[in-house]
């Protein structure tokens, strides 16, 4: 079963169920009022302008009410205006508060796994004592047996167990966690289903990765992303520009009143809405980009929240945003493109070596190899009918464990034989240093296996080559389709593998990646990454091993597997709780969605202004230049109803767009140009047209309800 698909489905289900849960709405409503405090509102400059405008209008109402001045316009009109101005601010605050509440709810569900549990702490002098998980310190060792809850984030240092991680990932299938190798990371709150493991705790209670993330999501220390900062700046500048437009309208309207009075031969000047300060405030509020200003914070929080729902924990909102900009994706062959465990499909002995001898030596050499590959060779040898006792290593043998550096593993037997199994070039190099000459046939065998897309491993005994073990890779189901999807998203896919060139090339061709990096070591991976970055590209990669840490840190988006080592998790800027390498696609999509949503709502917000002008400008001068009615193409009922309708539209569009802000504008991998055309039509042209319809509709309703004169 494809893990990522199930996660996406689960996320969809969750978001539909929860979008407007009343448990979230009420506290958010309350918070919306709290956020009216100027020192908080100030953080959103656009809405702060609205708040100041609303307060100013209130002052005018009070002045009129106390009888200081008697304007020509009914007090009810100003009160209605002010009511909707305050509502505009509250809607904006609600959008932010609601998004924060949703994030907090998600964080709370994560935190529920962080309850205190009993832990068996391993004492230095042997034996265990039962302590509370809260009291565990980093570096403590804890023993966890079947049925127990792992007391904290840590690394398995002994044993192997199947672990139920559904509490944090939602995935019910248990996963294997074992010492050594790259699947040693365990998360506090998950349950061991079988066997016994010893875990070295790496984070104290409340300091774990999850805890830090929870704090981040809760918005306590929410940092704005660079793009968000730039957008806020632009929106503030637009507010300033519209202030420049609106303020001079007062003297201009005043002049119009003067000369119309003289034209009509009146002794006192006319008074139009153009010199009515609450009306000018309404015009300003309608013009400044309140829609995006109100939803900007919500969009950012929702982006992090979406990532969280996809079981990805990001260290910063910035990482999610960067994901949308990724140019190149490094995909580890093993685990991402192929099913991690390779299968020893063939044993090919060289001349003068029996099949039995090769199998026994291969199994011995793999005894200390904890990688799935090594384990699989042993399994295959046993499966071929070789008795267990023949491949049991003598007690006093020295094991040489597999390392990514040497790319071989082996055993030094007491009788002096040094058996090694590993990557062909590594073994051949070893044969040559030991004075042996690798038989010519070896190259043919290796090449043949490589061409077929399999990985050949050489087995040697001292300076003598024994034969080739062919390890076959199974492609993950659907992987080719996902690669196509990545390409459509405009990403350059690079497969990274320790295999030789030939093998790598074959697999690369089979799955359709753009490029591959063969015989990769952590160093070559890092240098490749740096080279791509030097060309101005942004690179994403995922990794789980400690040796991936430098590259994860260097990458612009480093997605670490939760099952991976602590070093990898520390180095990356995201952690995938599902440990599903194909998650990078979702990460990129979430990033793109985030940026698209911002762009779409900004464009919509600015495009809306055209219609508002056609409603408000004729209304402003209806009292002085009545023939400007020709501009009133919506044919609104009266000047005051025109202005009220525009203000009401401006306010209610905010809650109407909250779902878009939270769910995001859908990303389609159809290429940038087609996407831009599509969004320009929907949000640009739509943004011009929609308010014409909306304002007219509101005007009709206001008239039908006899709410306006």
């Amino acid at each position, binding site marked *: 079963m494809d893990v990522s698909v199930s996660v996406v489905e689960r996320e969809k289900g969750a978001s539909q169920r929860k979008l407007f849960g009343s448990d979230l709405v009420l506290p958010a409503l309350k918070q919306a009022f709290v956020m009216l405090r100027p020192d908080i509102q100030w953080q959103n400059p656009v809405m702060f302008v609205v708040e100041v405008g609303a307060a100013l209008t209130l002052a005018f109402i009070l002045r009129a009410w106390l009888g200081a001045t008697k304007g*020509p316009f009914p007090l009810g009109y100003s009160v209605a205006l002010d009511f909707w101005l305050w509502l505009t601010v509250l809607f904006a605050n609600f959008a932010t508060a609601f998004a924060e509440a949703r994030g907090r709810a998600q964080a709370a569900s994560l935190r529920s796994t962080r309850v205190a549990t009993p832990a068996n702490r391993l004492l230095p002098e042997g034996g265990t004592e039962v302590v509370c998980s809260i009291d565990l310190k980093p570096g403590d060792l804890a023993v966890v047996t079947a049925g127990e809850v792992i007391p904290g984030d840590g690394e398995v240092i002994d044993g192997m167990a199947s672990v139920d991680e559904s509490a944090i990932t939602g995935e019910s299938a248990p996963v294997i966690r074992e010492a050594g190798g790259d699947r040693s990371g365990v998360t506090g709150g998950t349950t061991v289903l079988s066997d016994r493991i010893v875990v070295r705790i790496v984070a104290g209670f409340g300091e774990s990765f999850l805890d830090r993330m929870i704090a981040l999501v809760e918005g306590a220390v929410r940092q704005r992303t660079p793009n968000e900062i*730039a957008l806020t*700046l*632009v929106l503030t*500048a637009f507010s300033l*520009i519209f202030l*420049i*437009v609106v303020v*001079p309208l*007062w*003297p*201009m309207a*005043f*002049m*119009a009143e*003067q000369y119309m009075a*003289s034209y*009509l031969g*009146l002794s*006192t000047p006319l008074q139009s809405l153009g010199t009515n300060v609450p009306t000018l405030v309404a015009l300003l509020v309608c013009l400044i980009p309140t829609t995006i200003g109100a939803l900007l914070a919500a969009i950012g929080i929702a982006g992090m929240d979406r990532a969280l729902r996809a079981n990805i924990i990001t260290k910063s909102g910035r990482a999610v*945003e960067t994901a*949308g*900009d990724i*140019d190149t994706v490094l995909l580890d062959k093993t685990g991402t493109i192929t099913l991690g465990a390779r299968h020893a499909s063939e044993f090919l002995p060289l001349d003068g070596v029996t099949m039995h001898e090769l199998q026994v030596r291969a199994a011995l050499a793999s005894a200390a190899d904890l990688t799935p590959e090594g384990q699989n060779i042993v399994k295959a040898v046993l499966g071929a009918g070789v008795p267990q006792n023949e491949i049991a290593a003598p007690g006093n043998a020295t094991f040489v464990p597999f390392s990514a550096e040497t790319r071989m593993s082996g055993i030094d037997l007491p009788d002096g034989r040094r058996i090694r199994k590993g990557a062909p070039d590594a073994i051949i190099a070893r044969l040559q240093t030991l004075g042996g000459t690798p038989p010519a046939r070896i190259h043919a065998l290796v090449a043949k296996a490589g061409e077929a897309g399999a990985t050949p491993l050489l087995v040697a005994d001292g300076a003598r080559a024994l034969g080739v073990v062919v390890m076959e890779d199974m492609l993950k189901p659907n992987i080719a389709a996902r690669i196509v999807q990545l390409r*459509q*998203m*405009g*990403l350059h896919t690079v497969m990274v593998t320790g295999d030789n060139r030939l093998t790598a090339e074959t697999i690369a061709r089979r799955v359709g990646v753009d490029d591959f990096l063969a015989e990769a070591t952590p160093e070559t991976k890092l240098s490749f990454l740096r080279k791509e970055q030097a060309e*101005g*590209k942004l690179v994403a990669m995922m990794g789980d091993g400690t040796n991936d840490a430098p590259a994860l840190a260097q990458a612009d988006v480093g997605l670490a597997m939760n099952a991976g080592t602590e070093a990898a998790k520390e180095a990356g800027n995201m952690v995938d709780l599902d440990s599903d390498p194909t998650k990078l696609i979702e990460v990129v999509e979430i990033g793109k*969605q985030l940026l*698209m949503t*911002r*762009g779409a709502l*900004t464009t919509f917000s*600015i495009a809306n*202004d*055209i219609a508002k*002008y056609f409603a408000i*400008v*004729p209304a402003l*001068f*209806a*009292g*002085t*230049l*009545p*023939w*400007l009615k*020709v501009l009133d193409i919506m044919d609104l009922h009266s000047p005051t109803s025109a202005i009220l309708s525009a203000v009401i539209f401006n306010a209610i569009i905010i809650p109407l767009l909250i779902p878009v802000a939270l769910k995001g*504008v859908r990303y389609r991998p159809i*290429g*940038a*140009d087609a*996407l*831009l055309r599509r*969004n*320009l039509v929907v*949000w*640009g042209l739509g943004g011009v047209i929609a308010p014409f319809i909306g304002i007219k509709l509101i005007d009709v309703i206001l008239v039908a309800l006899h709410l306006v004169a």
Partner: protein
Amino acid sequence: MWTLPILLIVVTILISIPLSSYFASVMDGRLKGPRVIAWCQSRLDSGPQNWKQYAVAMLIFTGALFTYGYLVLCLQPIAPLNPLGRGILAPSTIFNTVISFMTNTNLQHYSGDQSLSNFSQIFFILPNMFLSASVGFCALTAIIRCFRGEPTVGNFFVDMWRVVVFIYLPAALIAGVVFIWQGMPMTFASQHSVATLQAGAMGLDSHGQAVPQHIIVGPVAATIPIKMLGTNGGGFYGMNSAHPLENPTAISNFETTFLMMIFPFTLVLMYGRMLRRVRHSVVIYGVMLAMMIGVIWWAINFDTLRPNPAFTGTPVAHAYHVADANAPGGSLAFTVPKVASLPVDQALGNLEGKELRFGTSAGAVFAAITTDVTCGAVNAEHDSLNPIASISPLVGMWLNCIFGGKGVGMINFLIFLIVGVFLAGQMVGRTPEYLGRKVGAREMKLAMVALLVHPLLILGPSGVFAATPWGTEAVANPGPHGFSEIVYQFSSSSANNGSAMDGLGTTYGLNNNPSPAPEAVPWDIATGLVMLFSRYLPILAPMAMAFYLGRKKPAPASLATMRDDTWTFGFLILGTILVIGALLFLPVAALGPLAEQFGPIPFGG
């Protein structure tokens, strides 16, 4: 009717294509020229400059130009080449004029033939026209070099030299020869005295003799080519290009119009060639051309093809209500009565204030183009355009990037482009990029500063002048028309255009002028300051923006990046410009031209 604009546009396009190649090779320094020119250039070369040094050099140069201009104008009464004994201009007019010519605006609060001596024409007007026109050109070149990621942006003085010597001088020489052939004066003499055909047309002197007509002449053919090529627009004569000696024939009119279009057109393509993004620049060119065709169409359609509303009268009576607190119900009803139209055949459109020697549409076409390319020369009275038609020149100045002035038009376009890319570019799901570089907060800050200056300097002073005696006592026609005049004056100053809707009493002229306009001094000072700020801020901020953008590492284009050489991109930028432009200026357009057009005519005065 349509032949003139179509021919103009086609000819300009055809010539701008090869010319842009030449411009690019000049500005890239591939053209060396004769040894003496190369020697002079090497003397000027103070070494490569970074953008700040370049900007400082530009400002110092401008300061020197200001001082020099002030000196020349102050010395006019005592300087040679002044047989008519022109006095000194009024102090505020000198301030205004020096800034006007330094900033390539050429707003003239004086009448050239009445107030300036040949000395001032040759030593003030002429060098200013060459040099101020080169500043925008150099600034664009520096911006291009920033975008190319070069650490230094060239040398301001070398660029200046190249522009003047390799581009303006040869072009102006060729153009001047054609003008002389068409009958433009070129002489050190100051006036011809001729007997009028109708004896005594100019009146009789104390002896009862017919006074001869004095026709002012001078080195006209020297200043007019650069007046048009440099999109300066400051006329030798007060009547500018409507004067028969400044624009003698239909051929000279075509040449005049062509000259002001050619360099702004060419510079867009030069931008593409120097950046090796010709297709991108073609899209920009297309967007600008679409807008230009739009405003030319507007001008012709509403001026040449529509009757003058002052003559058509009001066919039916209209009843209106205005808000009047003293009237019952707060609303006062009044009727604009039916007015019979005057018996005037209006088949040829609005002919008021047109120079009909050039055809009926020449005035409208010229009005649209001169404001698009911020030239500011006029061959018709903009004050007499049909009110709704006057939106055409106003839009040209408000947007200020329909090709625009040399260099600065392209720079202004870049500001809209960056804003458009930033707002809508995110809709492809990436951080907005231009030329492969991510547009961040710092670049946007600078772009927004540049975007803000123009509306601030138009709307702010317009508001102040509309409601105070500075404006109300200066306008010839109260009401919407007077308001249009005020807005036009500040739009023209802020766009560094220099044309005027006239009708405004802004002329102080000579210091010994017995009856200066009552509000001339505030107008001189206000428009002077507007010209000053709106010239340099929108050059410096984009230069800084280009520098910060240019030093970022460009990312190679992929399927996921927004392409900047497609029609989609063109529509995006066009939409951005039109929407932002409309949002900024729709209210003043409504209060001025629209209120006048739809209101009772004649209105007020």
